[in-house]
């Protein structure tokens, strides 16, 4: 199938996510400084740099192997809450995808849905708690809705939904994570987790479009 997403594209997704996070490192950390503990960009950049090194040292032969390497590396290098959350996303993605070298659009949708459900289960966050879920949840729903039009279209729809969800976190009062202790004072700031999650979705769209 011409529309299948390959192992190479999925690896490019992860590597592209690293490039985007490195480029936005200061931005993510500044967002976190306003309502958290000012380490989101630094921690995620450190973890993804380790991921890229790990993938170079032992190139994965299947999608589940790729995603599992990403997960275990993030879990052991990022720390805080972001490590387990992004780690869980890729761990569940790996299990759902299985030992294959391509994913058709339905299989990709299922793997992404499993990843997002994992983040929700790990963090116990609901929509509008001002977290990663506010970008990821609308993104996967948009992807599923547009899946019939092919992976590239589904990805574009997911990016638009993720970025709209990210921007909609600004007025919200945080109910999960460190920002929740600020109560009303957390309103008026973009959520750093939603911001990095939108980059994850954008990196997927870039990798799929670059086929």
């Amino acid at each position, binding site marked *: 199938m011409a529309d299948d997403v390959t192992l190479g594209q999925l690896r490019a997704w992860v590597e592209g996510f690293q490039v985007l996070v490195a480029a936005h490192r200061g931005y993510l950390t500044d967002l976190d400084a306003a309502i958290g503990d000012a380490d989101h960009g630094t921690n995620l950049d450190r973890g993804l740099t380790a991921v890229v090194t790990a993938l170079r040292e032992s190139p994965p032969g299947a999608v589940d192997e790729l995603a599992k390497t990403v997960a*275990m590396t993030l879990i052991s290098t990022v*720390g805080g*809450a972001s490590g387990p959350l992004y780690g869980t996303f890729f761990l569940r993605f790996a299990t759902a995808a299985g030992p294959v070298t391509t994913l058709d659009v339905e299989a990709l949708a299922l793997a992404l849905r499993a990843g997002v459900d994992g983040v929700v289960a*790990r963090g116990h966050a609901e929509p509008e708690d001002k977290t990663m879920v506010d970008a990821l949840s609308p993104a996967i729903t948009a992807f599923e809705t547009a899946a019939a039009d092919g992976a590239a279209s589904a990805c574009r729809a997911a990016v638009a939904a993720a970025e709209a969800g990210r921007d909609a976190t600004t007025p919200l009062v945080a109910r999960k994570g460190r920002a929740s202790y600020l*109560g009303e004072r957390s309103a008026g700031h973009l959520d750093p987790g939603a911001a990095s999650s939108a980059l994850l979705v954008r990196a997927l769209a870039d990798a799929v479009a670059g086929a």
Partner: protein
Amino acid sequence: MKKLINDPDQVVADALVGIEAAYPGRLAVDHAHRVVHRADAPVRGKVGLVSGGGSGHEPLHAGFVGPGMLDAACAGEVFTSPTPDQVLAASRIVDGGAGVLHIVKNYTGDIMNFEMAAELLGAEGGPPVASVVTADDVAVQDSLYTAGRRGVGVTVLVEKIAGAAAAQGRGLADVAAVAARVADSGRSMGVALTSCTVPSAGRPTFDLPEDEMEIGIGIHGEPGRFRRPLGSAAEIAEQLVVPVTDDLDLTGAPVIALLNGMGATPLLELYVMYGEVARLLEARGVGVARTLVGNYITSLDMAGCSLTLLRADDELLGLWDAPVDTPGLRWGA
């Protein structure tokens, strides 16, 4: 920033070298995973107790590793949760065949990292794991709309009492139940006179004017309930005792009291504070059976203190009195 360090980024690694050097034959360190454990771990047939968290709260947790208390402690970066692979390594080290208890302070990162470790341990066919979460900081009022109350001083009491239960040879479910009972029966409230300074940040975490104090401070410098002009010890004691005793009925039971220093407050001042606390508790009909005054769960170089009160009973008092032999807490051994 004036600190006794070599390199701000090496503070935790360097401290673990020092801990190992200070307690040869008693404590050992897995430097790759930053795990401090009993030198004789695993203790066969005993439930293994693992705790951990961000560094900067010493002696919690590594200073409470030893007979009668923890079997291992995972040291995260300063004020940053340890990662699941650290907790996994610690759990394997202390697995003596009777299961492992994780003692976790209620912070989002800590909860998730310990949860993942327990899942990974289960996936590899590891020992059964139970966990207890401490969430005793009454400063957090809207606990339904936040990540919940923070785990602070009661963690020290959980580690001591659950450690004693494990040392008696009790099973995992029993030790976990004792730990949960302690966690549920303790409440805390803290006050800061100055901010702490995280080594890698190099500047104070928050600004607090010379003549003000923050009531309800968290052990990472999280904002409290409110700021007030600095009061006398008697006035500050009241600001700590009232919210704790309002939250938990402590009358008619033996109480264990912990008056804890935040790191930069002299013991002399902690004794002044405890005198005021004791007077207020007596006036409220609260009977203190055991007292601990000193630096047990600190916040780097923050000045200030916290009060933890635990509603105990004869069983918990007996476990409290049992021998303990750790760098941070030692009696009867």
